[in-house]
């Protein structure tokens, strides 16, 4: 009788253990997936920028600096190889972009161009998507970190060396600020 009880308790522990381990792996994969989402959106922004510059070139003859600024920031962001450099370069690119959209206000012809309007919608949506994928990533990281610090999952996490993930913070504080537009 006592053997059966012992076996039952053991079974409960084993199944609990397996369940916790599996949920931890699932959560870690969610974090990874959320990270790749950010990457997808950043890449998309890089793809859109040449078209934007191409469209704007004809209208903005006197804003050569702004346009080359964007192009340079883009190639820098594409060349960045580690996470820290990437965060910084992407931040600089966002800064250049918002500067550009402020300048655009002075070019009514450009603003009336349907091609440009569609691009602007795509780009601002991509900016939002970057922000939301970052938000989702941080949500997932928070959830995962809570899980590996809480009892009893912290025991399993300790055994299999689950490390807390890092939050994705902005390198460039200026990006947090929405540019002030004066009319």
């Amino acid at each position, binding site marked *: 009788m006592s053997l059966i009880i012992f076996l039952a308790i053991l079974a409960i522990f084993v199944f609990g253990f397996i369940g916790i381990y599996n949920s931890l792996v699932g959560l870690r994969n969610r974090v990874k997936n*959320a990270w790749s*989402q950010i990457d997808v959106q950043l890449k998309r922004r890089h793809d859109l920028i040449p078209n934007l510059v191409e469209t704007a070139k004809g209208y903005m003859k006197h804003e050569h600096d702004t346009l080359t600024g964007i192009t340079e920031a883009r190639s820098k962001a594409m060349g960045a190889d580690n996470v820290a450099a990437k965060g910084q370069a992407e931040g600089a690119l966002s800064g250049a972009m918002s500067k550009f959209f402020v300048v655009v206000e002075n070019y009514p012809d450009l603003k009336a161009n349907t091609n440009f309007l569609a691009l602007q919608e*795509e780009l601002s*949506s991509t900016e*939002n*998507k970057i922000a*939301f*994928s970052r*938000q989702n990533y941080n949500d997932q990281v928070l959830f995962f970190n809570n899980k590996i610090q809480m009892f009893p999952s912290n025991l399993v996490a300790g055994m299999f060396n689950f490390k807390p993930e890092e939050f994705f913070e902005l390198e460039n504080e200026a990006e947090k600020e929405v540019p002030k537009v004066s009319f």
Partner: protein
Amino acid sequence: MWELISANKRKSIILFLAMGICLVLLGYFIGGTYAGKDGGYYGLSIALFIWVFMSIISFFSGDSIILAISRAKKVTPNVHPQLFNVVEEMKIAAGLPAMPSVYIIPDPAPNAFAVGRNPQKSAVVVTAGLLEQLNRDELQGVVAHEMSHILNRDVLFMTFSGVLLGSIVFLSHVFLRSMWFGGGRRFNSKGKSGGQAQMIMMIVALAIAILAPIMARLLYFAISRKREYLADATAVRLTRYPEGLASALEKISGSNLDLQSANKATAALYIANPLKAKGRKLSNLTSTHPPIHERVDILRRISNGANYINYQHAFTFIKGNRGRTNIIPPSGIQDKTKLDLRTKPLEEAAKPHKKGVRDLGDLIRAVNNYVFLVCACGLKMKLPPDFNKKSFNCPRCGTLNQVPVAELAALTAVTDIIDKPSNDSQPEKDEKIFRYKRKGKGWESFNCECGAVKQLSPSFNKNSFYCNHCGRKILIEN
């Protein structure tokens, strides 16, 4: 957020079972009234059968039935790129595994709802009126609200409990009617010994038949209202911008148009009650939605954070003593993380939103596969999809315009692709074709064989279209 969803799921199952037991009991006692104890079991199995049968139907084809009766049409990104972008943004924020399909109801009344039995296969539905009246931030709020219904699996639960409610109401209605018109007759014909037990059965059945529909309705409406609050709270958490949803709700309630395709059964699904004219008479207890001004007040009250706990604080503040109940399950309240609110609207939304009735009409026509043709004099003409003349005169300047037959055909082809997804991109043999290999995913322009310039937008996702200059079919290879 994910603990919250599982808490929600558990609660749904309990409520669901409670209503199911109610239905089965009702069946048992009704059967008992007519044929004693054996009849009770017959009644029970009939009630169970109705329940299971209707649940199976609503599980497997509930969404398509709802979409069909709401006259929602599936659309491609070209019809409204911004809507698609906003849905994708919210899909990312909510961490949904798959992009929901997007439907538009060609109706000027602003409203929205979502369907889907799980997050892998879902759909967001908005009306043309909503797109016309809301700016980007407001649209984002509405889509986020719908997205949280999908996340919480509210739609599945609401259809299931709606079906249950319907069965309960149906059974008790039939029973009460039969008692009213044929009462007593059946009992007299039988022996006295069985009569007494049947009398008891009848009294219990009467009591249940009168009370059950009322209770089930109140329960259903209470849950429905609570879920609206929860979806509002989740929307704030996703967008971090309560003002967007608040002003969207204000605009929606400000419209006095009734949504033509909505009815009592589907009203609970919408973000705000679509039956305005009838809805006003209903009391708070029997409405599927909390009063909009209250929802707006709560949203406007939220300060210092976008987490669930901030919504609960605002809720308690607005509702006073009645707001003691927790709208948010405990696991959501425990999360004390501070989530910064976005204080400023998006750049685009800051500008006044200028769209007229004409845009609304164009949108509705685009949903219905009209072709737009601009005459040399600048007049924009709209051709219905079944327009069958080859050419016609412009009503303003009289110029003879050729109908782009190929384009009309292409549009019909697009709807065909949507309706049945097929990989069949082989053109017919006698058709002239031109192949273009796509370089990337961005904007691309190229020349058709006839020399006309074609441009592809990043959101272009079809594999072919027709050149409107020479009528060639252009195949896009990715």
